[in-house]
């Protein structure tokens, strides 16, 4: 029984991480049909912000020493700032371009961010011990689980709750939802496009920062490629969830996390190295079954 609880918590915590990543991508896709491949590099950037630039093998921790109450807002601000800056400098100029062009631009931006980090910090992965107390394990319904897993799930659920409130109850949320549904119509009705888009980027940047902080606390590692794998799975989650659907992205994030943990548990040893092939196989089956994803966004339906 404790084993099953343990597996459920493993699946939930991994799923939370993927859900957060997927949400960051889905938010921007919703308002401007952009699949932002620079999201993974934004995650890495936020984590590197904990360190002082140096190419030494050992990390020179800088912002990472700040007390938590200052550190979290700072990193969230850095994520939001970088994200908004990429909108102002890069994506704004592609507003009229087709989605494929924007996607390529986001790839390019991702490379720029990654090589900027390479220049300042070198390619060596660095190590940092953030919030050590989260690494301790606690008793939970009879199972011993690392505190971080519980915190990750709690934070994700908290963020989901806040975001839902924001989107459903606030004026800005309403504008964002309107823009996601029909951007042209929303503008005609007085929604200011730049403000809504910038808001989406800021939120997405903060989600990147949150993902980064959880990642670095869990792995203890800061690496210029660290955002890439989360980004890939998050992107797949937004596709299976139904591009444009926030609920879909989050649900699919949890499903992929659960599938990944489950495969690791049930596959025989010889098949386990190919775990991801099974996970992605399930992705293909899902897409054949529902080509538009699990939750088809209303805005997507109109596009024939």
């Amino acid at each position: 029984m404790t084993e099953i609880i343990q597996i459920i918590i493993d699946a939930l915590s991994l799923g939370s991480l993927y859900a957060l990543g997927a949400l960051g991508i889905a938010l921007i896709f919703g308002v401007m049909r952009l699949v932002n491949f620079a999201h993974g590099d934004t995650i890495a950037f936020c984590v590197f912000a904990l360190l002082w630039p140096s190419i030494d093998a050992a990390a020179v921790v800088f912002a990472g020493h700040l007390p938590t109450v200052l550190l979290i807002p700072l990193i969230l601000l850095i994520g939001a700032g970088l994200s908004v800056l990429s909108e102002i400098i890069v994506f704004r100029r592609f507003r009229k371009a087709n989605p494929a062009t924007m996607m390529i631009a986001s790839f390019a931006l991702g490379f720029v961010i990654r090589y900027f980090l390479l220049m300042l910090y070198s390619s060596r992965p660095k190590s940092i011990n953030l919030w050590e107390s989260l690494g301790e394990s606690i008793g939970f319904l009879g199972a011993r689980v690392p505190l971080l897993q519980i915190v990750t799930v709690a934070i994700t659920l908290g963020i989901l709750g806040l975001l839902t409130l924001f989107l459903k109850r606030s004026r800005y949320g309403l504008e964002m939802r309107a823009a996601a549904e029909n951007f042209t119509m929303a503008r005609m009705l007085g929604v200011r496009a730049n403000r809504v888009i910038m808001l989406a980027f800021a939120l997405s940047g903060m989600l990147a920062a949150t993902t980064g902080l959880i990642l670095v606390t869990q792995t203890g590692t800061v690496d210029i490629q660290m955002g890439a794998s989360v980004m890939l799975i998050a992107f797949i989650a937004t596709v299976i969830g139904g591009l444009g659907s926030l609920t879909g992205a989050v649900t699919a994030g949890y499903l992929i996390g659960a599938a990944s943990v489950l495969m690791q548990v049930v596959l025989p040893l010889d098949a386990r190295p190919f775990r991801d092939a099974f996970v992605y196989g399930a992705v293909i089956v899902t897409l054949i079954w529902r080509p538009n994803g699990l939750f088809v966004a209303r805005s997507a339906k109109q596009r024939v």
Partner: protein
Amino acid sequence: MSVSGETIMRHLTKIAFGMLMAGLSLGASAQAADIVVGFATASSGFMQAYDKPAQDAALIRIDEINKAGGLLGRQIKVVTADTKTDRAEGAKAGLEVIDKGADLVIVSCDYDFGSPAALAAEAAGKISMFLCAESVKAGIQGVGPHSFSASILAAVQGATMVDWSYNKKNARTYYRLLDTWTEYNKGVCDGFDWQLPKMKDAKLVGSDTFKNEDTSIAAQITRIKSLPKPPDAIMLCSMMPGVVSAIKQIRAAGITSMILNGSSVDGSYWLSATPDLSDFYVPVQGSIYGDDPNKDVTVFNAKYKAATGGDPSSQYVYPGYVLIDVWAKAVARAGTTDADAVTAKLEAMKDEPTLFGPRTFTSELHHQNKGKYLIVDVNKGKPSVVGDWTIAEPIPLSYLLKQ
């Protein structure tokens, strides 16, 4: 008239060509005063962080030889070309240093990134040496008869850790956790698999895999925790950066079994991620922690610091030094830099002493399938040498090739 004009032109062309060739050979003979070592390694891109430390160590040995009067009475000159951590650029870099007259081509640390330049050297009939590759392919099997690596095979590291932990730590139950990312990781676990059945009463109680980029290995940890009894030792076959995450998560889950790994985790730069890590063991060719039983290693560390401004960050600095050392000895014995003659002298080396343990090369294997390792123990976040170990018998080539 027109015919004789043509003849004159032909003569003139011949003369001009002859002069050109004479000029070229003059230039070449002027250069021949120096022996040229070419580095076709990464000075940019992510391999740079791995190539540069070993290259700096190689340069220290070259400097020592030059100061002691040179090799065959000639000075060693260094030429370089950047592979930019790109395999296509690697082949070009190999050709570039050969064009600059390299007698020895030193290539990137990793087999995949170093082999293009090594193959270029092989095609030109030159000796190539990998800075620190630990795959059996980095040599005759993957490049050709003039290719060598100065490091020790990954499999030896896995085998050494089993043998040592069984004998010195009384480990009897082992758990094998393989990171399927690289050949190196598989190599370490192959060595583990080869050695374990030789240990009486030692038992493999479980086996699992993960991927280096996995953000969470929670499912793998749950499997270890579901065992009726925790294993005495976990053989982790992994490398940076994922290994740090794996170790951190294993310890965070409250698993206290000793953890063994290959040399890839040597260095204290990552220990900040797991401040109180204990019972963690790695094999190293020399100690960067200032406690090497061989005092000359500590002297070398000081030299390295003086030359580069920093202490060696891991044991992967050392193979660079060994590489120049064994090659220079072979050249001195052969009396020439000719690839065949030098290869023959290298292949004649049996337990050749070097600063970082003995080296043996044969006409079948240009790599070490047995080697002396120091064992580093990380205790409360502090690494130190606790002994040394050499596996009783070399891992057979046939086994290495079968994997």
